């Protein structure tokens, strides 16, 4: 196997050498072989591009040579030929070469038809006549020697349709003699071979659209009916093999997704296989000749698929690649499709042909300009195609023929050959003969080299060539119309009466300038049954006639114009002359009359003389009358001449109008063109918009994909958070899982205050740190707590007061005070002062700093809420009154007293409006501006008010109720909103220093921390406390401090990030990969925490 052998041949058919890569057609090959074994002849028909030639060259023949075709001998002679313009000659040449005979002798023999071909075979060394004595008498060794030499003969008439596409072979429904004999030889040979058991086989390949023309050959339709193999369309699984298997055989591969895309995107109808093979050939090269798996990205780089269909990573690679692509190529990527790969490839070759010539060919004269090179390619490809019954088909031509059609003395034939080379390179193979990289001389084309488009798929899929062919078809159509007029002119001995009138002359003149029909171009469309040379000769005559006809028509029209002009001038001159003459005669007649009158007077005097003179006058009068009549006639002539002149003017006017109409039509066409351009522009805009939409949708899709990924990670974070609260032998695992859950949650955009993650972190931290808990030493019931940085003031219900400091997690008692037994509540004013109800039923105002106390003689059981304002102490309670006591001037009688309709349970102060808010046990809520001391009812709810707090940042009063409701009020006393925490009483409320968070202590011992701005968000829930919450308060550092009846003071951070940082400092290792796989998951990339 040649190393350079590509598994996909591109546009050209598979060769016998490439048979190793010819896959997906095994069933078809077997059918043909079976048919040959039985009938000796098969006519393989099918649509253009169905791979008929490949099927024989890369399928049937290699199978036969390999011994998988049952026949008489082991060797095979393949006498293949194409009819071209010389079917019998080509058959003879191939048979002679294979049987090692003289070509002329073979040609002569074959021209007798019938058994001639089989006789030639039987007489050759390749056939063993077993009835001959020579064979019968031969020993085993001699026989083996004969057998080793003997060969079966396979005659292959490839592209049989050339019989019908070349007028030398078939014209006006009649075959030429040579074509007829060739067909007769093939059919008879097959018939005799079958009858006599001679190992001779015949294969004819032909496009199925020419079948009907086969009736021109006797017996051929019958043979087709009996031995036709119509190449089937490839099934999906066969197409899959065509794509996948050659790459596999060559050690490469094609991705499954590309296979499916290629199959789905192949257009139905003609050219599926050549278009596919060409694309695969290009893909193979782009993928490094099998080094990379051929995939979607490679197809996108060939303009065969929209980059939007690429996987994300490939799309990035493609965009970078496309950015660096030469600008002129980028336009070809606007309409990507599998078909477009061929179109794009051809376009790129077209544009780069000149540059390739300049770079590579020293021998080219290079007098050609880049623009002229494009013209050369256009004319060459127009020459290599022709219009046959309305179809564009291939047309073989020699280089010199193409050069002659180009007919530009500035351009050398070498340059024409050089310009076309890019289309002949192994990587393109659009035009035969191909360049052989191993033989540099094949780059050069001799003048007589025959060029041929490799496959008609190029004609149908290269859009530029389609346009050129349309133009060519138009030129041929005009030629045919013109020829009708020309032949009529010639038939009438080139009479002036049959020259072209002005309109046709303009049409054909314009065509002549555009098409420049020379003899070579005309010969291409000569359908007469004559030799090529004769065609050239006749076309030369025709070209001369065309030129003469046009020149004569032009000259005659000019002559007619001149004649008309001359006649007009003559008529005018005659008219003037007649008028002058008439005037003179009139004048003379008048003179005569005057004279007659004078003579009459004289006649009176001289009667005889007068009578004579009178007669003279009468005679003169008669003459005058005659002259007048002549003058009148001349005047009428002048009028007629004027009419003629007017008619000519009218005709001229008509012509002018016609010209104007044409001009208007031209303008309308221009307008239409501009409208089309506008439409195209709009369509482009629409396409751009659609592209933008598509891009947007793609982004949406990407976003959706991202979201899905995020969601799965967030879900994983939740799972890890829960797992982290399990019991592990090593509590480092708890820490690491909690930390990982926090990391995933944070990295994938989860709620930064997610309660599950928060609790995971908080609880994990609690496993290794005790600095959040102070266990109180006294086993007394607790009553109140005040907090300052690093210090707690704790009041026990038995009147014992302790001041504690907490540093590095350790608690120290700073001072202890024993006061009277408390019988009711204590109210902390600040870290140094507190009020409590003493057992003597007085209210005590106590300084913690110095232990001084001042007793106020007030019934303590009504004290429930206290407030200090301007050195006044306001106390409210069960007596349903709010009483003011002066601190600096103490008195047992209140200095002021305000009555309410229920017991006062809560009271808070809003400093900026100098107003207290007062809550009652019957659910009534009041505001009390100290400026007026007039209490105003704000709201009434039927549940007991159990807690209140004022948020100075948000300027909002928050009220907690016994049924779990929290209600929000503005400074004017209007309710803003309400929120139900659950069925438990909201016993404690606290707002942090920023006003952003609110903590609620519930009667079920739970603490919840909400986002103040959005209470519907999930709160942090702390359920560490085992007994009732006595006090709940935010510190300035955003920590939450709680005192509980379980005799602990607990301090919590309310931000997961704080706990995450604390844990980060406490972890001593990472999760092991095994732990990671067990708890996090095998599919999640391993990460370390430290």
């Amino acid at each position, binding site marked *: 196997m040649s190393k350079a052998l590509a598994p996909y041949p591109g546009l050209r058919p598979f060769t016998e050498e490439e048979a190793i890569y010819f896959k997906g057609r095994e069933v078809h090959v077997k059918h043909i072989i079976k048919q040959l074994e039985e009938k000796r002849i098969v006519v393989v028909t099918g649509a253009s591009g169905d791979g008929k030639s490949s099927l024989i060259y890369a399928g049937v023949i290699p199978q036969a040579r390999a011994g998988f075709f*049952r026949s008489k001998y082991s060797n095979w002679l393949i006498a293949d030929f194409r009819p071209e313009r010389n079917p019998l000659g080509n058959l003879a040449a191939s048979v002679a070469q294979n049987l090692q005979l003289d070509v002329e002798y073979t040609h002569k023999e074959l021209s007798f038809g019938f058994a001639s071909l089989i006789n030639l075979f039987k007489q050759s060394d390749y056939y063993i006549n077993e009835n001959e004595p020579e064979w019968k008498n031969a020993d085993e060794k001699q026989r083996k020697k004969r057998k080793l030499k003997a060969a079966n003969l396979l005659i292959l008439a490839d592209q049989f349709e050339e019989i019908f596409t070349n007028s030398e072979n078939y014209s006006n429904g009649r075959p030429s003699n040579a074509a007829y004999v060739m067909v007769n030889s093939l059919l008879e040979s097959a018939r005799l071979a079958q009858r006599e058991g001679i190992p001779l086989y015949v294969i004819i390949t032909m496009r199925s659209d020419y079948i009907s023309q086969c009736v021109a050959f006797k017996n051929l339709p019958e043979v087709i009916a009996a031995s036709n193999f119509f190449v089937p369309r490839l099934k*999906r699984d066969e197409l899959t093999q065509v794509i996948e298997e050659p790459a596999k055989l060559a050690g490469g591969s094609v991705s499954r997704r590309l296979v*499916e895309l290629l199959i789905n995107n192949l257009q139905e109808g003609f050219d599926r296989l050549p278009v596919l093979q060409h694309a695969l050939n290009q893909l193979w090269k782009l993928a490094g000749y099998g080094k990379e798996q051929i995939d979607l990205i490679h197809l996108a780089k060939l303009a065969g698929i929209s980059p939007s269909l690429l996987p994300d990573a490939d799309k990035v690679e493609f965009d970078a690649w496309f950015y660096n692509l030469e600008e002129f190529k980028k336009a070809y990527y606007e309409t990507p499709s599998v078909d477009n790969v061929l179109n794009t490839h051809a376009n790129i070759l077209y544009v780069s042909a000149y540059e390739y010539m300049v770079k590579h060919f020293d021998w080219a004269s290079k007098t050609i300009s880049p623009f002229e090179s494009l013209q050369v390619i256009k004319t060459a490809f127009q020459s290599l195609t022709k219009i046959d019954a309305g179809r564009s088909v291939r047309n073989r031509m020699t280089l010199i023929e193409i050069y002659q059609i180009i007919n530009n003395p500035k351009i050398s034939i070498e340059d024409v050959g050089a310009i076309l080379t890019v289309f002949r390179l192994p990587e393109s193979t659009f035009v035969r003969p191909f360049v052989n990289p191993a033989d540099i001389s094949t780059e050069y084309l001799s003048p007589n080299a025959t060029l041929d488009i490799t496959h008609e798929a190029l004609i149908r899929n290269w859009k530029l060539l389609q346009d050129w062919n349309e133009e060519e078809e138009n030129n041929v159509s005009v030629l045919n119309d013109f020829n009708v007029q020309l032949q009529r002119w010639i038939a009438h001995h080139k009479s002036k009466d049959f020259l072209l009138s002005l309109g046709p002359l303009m049409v054909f003149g314009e065509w002549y300038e555009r098409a420049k029909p020379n003899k070579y171009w005309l010969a291409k469309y000569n359908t007469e049954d004559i030799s090529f040379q004769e065609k050239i000769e006749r076309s030369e005559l025709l070209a001369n006639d065309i030129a003469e006809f046009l020149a004569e028509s032009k000259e005659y029209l000019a002559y007619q114009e001149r004649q008309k002009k001359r006649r007009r001038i003559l008529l005018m001159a005659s008219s003037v002359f007649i008028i002058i003459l008439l005037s003179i005669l009139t004048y003379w007649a008048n003179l005569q009359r005057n004279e007659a009158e004078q003579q009459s007077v004289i006649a009176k005097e001289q009667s005889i003389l007068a009578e004579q003179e009178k007669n003279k006058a009468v005679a003169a009068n008669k003459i005058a009358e005659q002259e007048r009549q002549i003058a009148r006639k001349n005047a009428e002539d002048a009028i007629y001449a004027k009419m003629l002149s007017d008619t000519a003017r009218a005709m001229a006017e008509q012509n002018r109008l016609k010209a104007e109409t044409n001009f208007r039509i031209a303008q309308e066409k221009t307008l239409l063109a501009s409208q089309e351009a506008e439409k195209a522009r709009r369509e482009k805009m629409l396409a751009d918009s659609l592209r933008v939409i598509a891009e947007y949708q793609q982004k949406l899709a990407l976003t959706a994909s991202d979201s899905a990924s995020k969601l799965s990670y967030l879900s994983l974070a939740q799972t890890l958070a829960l797992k982290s609260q399990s019991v592990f032998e090593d509590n480092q695992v708890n820490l690491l899982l909690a930390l990982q859950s926090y990391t995933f949650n944070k990295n994938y955009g989860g709620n930064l205050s997610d309660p599950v993650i928060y609790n995971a972190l908080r609880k994990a931290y609690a496993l290794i740190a005790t600095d959040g808990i102070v266990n109180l030493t006294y086993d007394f019931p607790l009553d109140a707590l005040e907090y300052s940085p690093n210090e707690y003031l704790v009041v026990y219900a038995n009147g014992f007061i302790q001041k504690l400091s907490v540093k590095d997690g350790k608690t120290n008692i700073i001072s202890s005070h024993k006061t009277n037994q408390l019988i009711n509540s204590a109210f902390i004013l600040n870290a140094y002062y507190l009020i409590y109800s003493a057992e003597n039923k007085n209210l005590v105002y106590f300084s913690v700093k110095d232990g001084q106390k001042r007793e106020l003689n007030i019934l303590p059981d009504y004290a429930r809420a206290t407030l200090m304002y301007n050195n006044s102490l306001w106390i409210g309670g069960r007596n349903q009154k709010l009483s003011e006591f002066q601190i600096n001037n103490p008195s047992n009688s209140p200095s002021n007293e305000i009555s309410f309709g229920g017991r006062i349970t809560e009271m808070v102060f809003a400093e900026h409006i100098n107003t207290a808010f007062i809550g009652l046990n019957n659910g009534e809520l009041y505001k009390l501006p100290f400026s007026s001391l007039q209490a105003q009812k704000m709201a009434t709810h039927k549940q007991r008010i159990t807690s209140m707090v004022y948020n100075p940042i948000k300027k909002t009063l928050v009220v907690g109720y016994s049924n779990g409701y929290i209600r929000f009020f503005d400074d004017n006393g209007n309710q803003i909103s309400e929120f139900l925490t659950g069925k438990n009483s909201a016993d404690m409320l606290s707002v942090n220093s920023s006003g952003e968070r609110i903590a609620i202590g519930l009667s079920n011992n739970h603490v919840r921390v909400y986002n103040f701005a959005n209470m519907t968000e999930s709160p942090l829930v702390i359920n560490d406390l085992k007994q009732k919450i006595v006090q709940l308060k935010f510190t300035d550092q955003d920590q939450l401090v709680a005192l509980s009846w379980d005799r602990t003071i607990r301090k919590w951070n309310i931000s997961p990030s704080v706990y995450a940082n604390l844990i980060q400092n406490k972890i001593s290792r990472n999760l092991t990969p095994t732990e990671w796989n067990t708890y996090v998951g095998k599919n999640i990339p391993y990460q370390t925490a430290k």
Partner: protein
Amino acid sequence: MSHDSGIKISVFLSQSSDDVENLKSDLETVLSRAGLEVVTLHLPENVNFAQYDSHAEALLNSTACSVHILGTEYNKHFPDIPVSIAEIDFQKALQHKDKAEDFHIFVWLPADAGKKNIESQQAGFIKKIRNSIQPNMIFSNHESPVAFVEDLRSIMQADKPLAEDVEKTDVFFMYHELDEQPAEEIYKILKDVVKVKFLKVNQEVNAEKFVIEQIQQSKLAVVYFEQMLHWAMNFVPQVWKGYGGASATTPILFIADASIPANHTTLFEAPNIIPLTLGHEIIPLEIKVKLDQLLSSNSLHHHDDE
């Protein structure tokens, strides 16, 4: 898997989105008319995911292939499951394909649907499938259900090689009838030292299928020729192509008998082909050596694998 026995091919018709419900119904009819047995799950009311999952799995186990129609909508079915029922089916089919070697998945995005606006989540699903096509998975965009089913039936009924007179052996020795005498000499020596099966190729019997299958069952294939250079040079590439080329596992020892001067030429070279021109006497020995090397190399690889 053979479907030539008259047994109907069973097709699992997956759930699909609401917009292609009519098409699904048409497809079901077309599949039946094409002689295929259609198995589909008609969802009862209130079925939950777990019930559906186990039922679908049972159905998949009983079928040879699955068909998935892709519409423009995504349509989640189970409130607690974030993916559509069509995607659930597709994932299940993928899992089943991993277990069942011959199971095929046919995905059909009707050409019409491909031109409409597709919901973004569905577009993501389609793109995911399109970019992850595996062996035995077909992604089709025919317009007509008939064309789609034609493809499906043709693929599911594709002829699989039938076992002939094929058996496992160490060496498969091939030669042409006209080289019978020297080949027989080699064979006689060879059969005493290795397990060998031979084939004499002649023009009477078409042995291509047998050759290819027998090579696949042999550890080493040998093509020998003395006089039949021309035959051998054509035989070996055809066989190489037929049995898998570069991706095949059995090497072919392509031996030219050096006794004929014309045989001193470049033989066919390709991956898995070992071309040798050898003196007649050492050919059996060389075959044995090559076989031993091969076995030793295979055993080494097995060892590595372990």
